[in-house]
């Protein structure tokens, strides 16, 4: 399917475990982003990437790691999950050409850390 997909859609894990959320886009957009969505805080940027092998921290990067070995994939890893990382995570890519400036979002990954 064309577009941006996230997996898993739902995940329950325990404190201290490592979790990886996957993000895949079919457009070959250069810019990709990871946001977390929390009530009262809206969407906060965790990490972003301008291209393969180019990543940088956003507003709330602590406890997260990203990689981007291929343009189409941008996985987000929680190295040792904490309860404060219970959230809904959204991956997005930034449009180019006529859709320049528009963010395209995945469906979200709802993570619960027990």
């Amino acid at each position, binding site marked *: 399917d064309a577009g941006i997909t996230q997996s898993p859609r739902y995940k329950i894990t325990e404190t201290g475990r490592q979790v990886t959320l996957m993000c895949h886009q079919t457009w070959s957009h250069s810019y990709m*982003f990871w946001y977390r969505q929390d009530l009262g805080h*809206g*969407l906060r940027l965790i990490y*972003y990437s301008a291209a393969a092998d180019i990543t940088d921290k956003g507003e709330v990067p602590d406890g997260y790691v990203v990689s981007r070995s291929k343009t189409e994939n941008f996985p987000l890893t929680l190295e040792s999950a904490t309860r404060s990382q219970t959230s809904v995570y959204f991956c*997005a890519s930034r449009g180019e050409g006529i859709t320049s400036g528009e*963010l395209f979002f995945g469906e979200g990954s709802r993570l619960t850390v027990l």
Partner: protein
Amino acid sequence: AQRVTQPEKLLSVFKGAPVELKCNYSYSGSPELFWYVQYSRQRLQLLLRHISRESIKGFTADLNKGETSFHLKKPFAQEEDSAMYYCALGMPDSWGKFQFGAGTQVVVTP
């Protein structure tokens, strides 16, 4: 530092009534402003961008640089407008990042 403020967490309006969602921003560069919407169980999607100056689903938004605002308006709310709305600031001179507001939940009751 850049900032996006949506003062209302929840707006409850009756069908047919006007609705206005407030958004104020602070940014030293040349801003790009957007409204994104998230309907129940759907992904976030673009509703409006300031440069297009168009009306989508009856919504309009005007960028007021003097007041640093980008309020979203609709003269007659419909039940299908019930959703979460996010104002977003695009920062083209900052790696193309976006700053989002906290969001406003709109509930339209018949």
